[in-house]
């Protein structure tokens, strides 16, 4: 039985806040459709990955302290990103390994953190979604969600609930798109080769839309699709599941289409 009306804190993520607020609203709609009370703690900024993955543990730890503070007391903490959820769930407790006071708090938070789509299916047992879609899509499994949080079947299960939507799998759905946080700007040539390979795979599926659960990968993939002047578009999976894909053009597209 799914819990009844749990209090869920939405971890918006910095990329959604800055680039694609619609994903945050789609997350709220889906969580409410699943029976959650959603709150958005005001004091949140970023999960700290840029610092953590650059070797700056001190900054990552300071940001994590703020997160422990702002996200205490909720039944669940949900992020529309496997990468940020992975940071909070898998990595954040390691920042407090040596701290007997904060370590239990960090672990308690980690226990309650989920990525959006897997939370909807695994915890709330959501069976039907508000979204409507006609056409063929493909899906990119972002690395952190896939390998740190084992998210693979969940988005496919929910997408299968949308009548008229056909999922055409990539030849290599588990291959990294080359985003990698700061990697994409530190090693742009390698990153470009990786995203070009990803986009080739996407184009060969014949799908008109690529979906994923992480905005980092999506900005990278959409940016490359547009650079290649491809008609294929990109969206966060939550937009389609929530039926909010009509409210905003695909990532990197203009409002006039």
């Amino acid at each position, binding site marked *: 039985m799914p819990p009844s009306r749990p209090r869920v804190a939405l971890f918006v993520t910095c990329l959604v806040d800055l680039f694609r607020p619609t994903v945050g609203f789609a997350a709220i709609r889906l969580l409410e459709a699943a029976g959650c009370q959603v709150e958005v703690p005001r004091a949140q900024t*970023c999960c700290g990955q840029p610092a953590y993955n650059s070797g700056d*543990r001190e900054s990552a730890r300071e*940001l994590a302290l703020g997160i422990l503070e702002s996200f205490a007391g909720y039944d669940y903490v949900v992020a529309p990103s496997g990468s940020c959820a992975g940071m909070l769930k898998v990595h954040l407790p390691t920042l407090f390994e040596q701290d007997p006071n904060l370590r239990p708090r960090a672990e308690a938070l980690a226990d309650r953190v989920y990525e959006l789509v897997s939370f909807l299916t695994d915890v709330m047992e959501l069976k039907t979604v508000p979204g409507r879609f006609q056409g063929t899509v493909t899906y990119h499994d972002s690395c*952190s969600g896939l390998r740190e949080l084992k998210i693979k079947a969940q988005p496919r299960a929910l997408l299968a609930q949308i009548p008229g939507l056909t999922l055409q799998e990539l030849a290599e759905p588990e291959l990294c798109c080359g985003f990698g946080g700061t990697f994409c700007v530190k090693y742009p*040539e390698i*990153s470009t080769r*990786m995203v070009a390979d990803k986009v080739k795979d996407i184009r060969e599926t014949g799908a008109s839309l690529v979906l994923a659960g992480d905005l980092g990968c999506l900005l990278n993939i959409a940016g*490359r699709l547009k650079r290649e002047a491809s008609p294929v578009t990109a969206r966060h999976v939550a937009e389609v599941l929530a039926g909010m894909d009509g409210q905003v053009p695909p990532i990197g597209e203009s409002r006039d289409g």
Partner: protein
Amino acid sequence: MLVTSPAFKENASHALADAALQKALARARTHFQRRRADAAAGLPEFEDLRARAREIKDHTLAHLDFYLERYAENVERAGGFVHWCRTAEDARAAILEICERAGARTVTKGKSMLTEEIGLNEHLERHGITPVETDLGEYILQLRDEPPSHIIAPAYHLNLDDWEKSFREHHTGLPPERAFHERRDILTEARKVLRERFLAADVGITGANFLIAETGSSVIVTNEGNGDLTQTLPHVHIALASIEKVVPTLEDAFCLLRLLARSATGQDFSVYTTFSTGPRRPGDLDGPEEYHVVLLDNGRSAMLGGEFQPMLRCIRCAACMNHCPVYGAVGGHAYGWVYPGPMGAVLTPSLVGVDQAGHLPNASTFCGRCEAVCPMQIPLPQMMRHWREREFERHLTPATVRTGLGLWAYVARRPTLYRWATRAAAATLGWLGRKRGRFASLPFAGGWTGGRDLPAPEGETFFARYAKTQRQGKA
């Protein structure tokens, strides 16, 4: 071997522009990944074996002194000699001394990355001894004076034309009408030349995949049988092994062997798995008269007890590089030293210094595929992150990155300031990008926009819009 890791970016750039290399990389990637996946799927206990293998190595590393001493005693009991070497220089000197005492003019060599690590060939040549690589890939690389680009398939980056060209250049007397149409033609030619070298060699040098403490045996695996000819035909066999190769028992070695071939080439077992215990005994039909083990530390004991200790579990199967998208894009030479790919990104800074090899642990997206396929469950991304932490502590991180990171962290720790800054950024970028929905170029964003557009933000931040909806809701 010259370390070119500081030039990783330039090396990578050349590799990305090398069409022949790119073709070879794509071929190797598909081949290795498919073979490994089939092999793992074909063995129901594969995951259990990984857990068991990890336990074996963790236990051994926790008691390494005990098992090394036990191993050495058993080598000596079987009539062999053990040479304990702290540094690469010590190992080179020990090997040279054995060769000189044997009056060696030529030595044959089985495939060994550790001999690359200590620069053995150059050292022997400088002292008038000719080393001959007998692994097919290593053999052609020696003719071409090139380092290996992969730890188990050292010359996969070469194509048939490269082979023919090198053979014609070096095998004088090769008739011009001799054709090289397929792999078999290469093998036939190499076999003919190498056979004479095997028979002429005074000393045979191999590496070791495992050392077994309870028996004093060294183990090598090969697919070509060259290792066996190298270690049984000459009078003297030298096995060069690093200290972390030891395992307690024969049974432990078998557990690791079952993982090794499956993870490496997707074979159930390598074609030849050979156990050497001491020199030829009375009544033996073949085998060397002298058996030496050169046991090398070269920085490994310094990794014990620290955050990089799990790296010493590595059995050199190459699954990490075979599944790494970065290695798959740039190949092995770009990494600039002996060990490429994710295992190299962790090991190279330990062995040559992070000041030299700093790029390697940074050139990763942390996609985690290496860890997912590593038979020894080594947390490779976590260890690359540890190297980044060391670099940050030592101020080796580039100043621009450090400043940017500091500024970002300052703002991100202050939600009110952060709200204001993101609002301004989203509004500006959203307005500038409102027509096209994306940017083909932007000041200070060349790293991004060199190869892809930057999608424009919607214009309003989530928090601005959310505050609005909350106010409307309340009104």
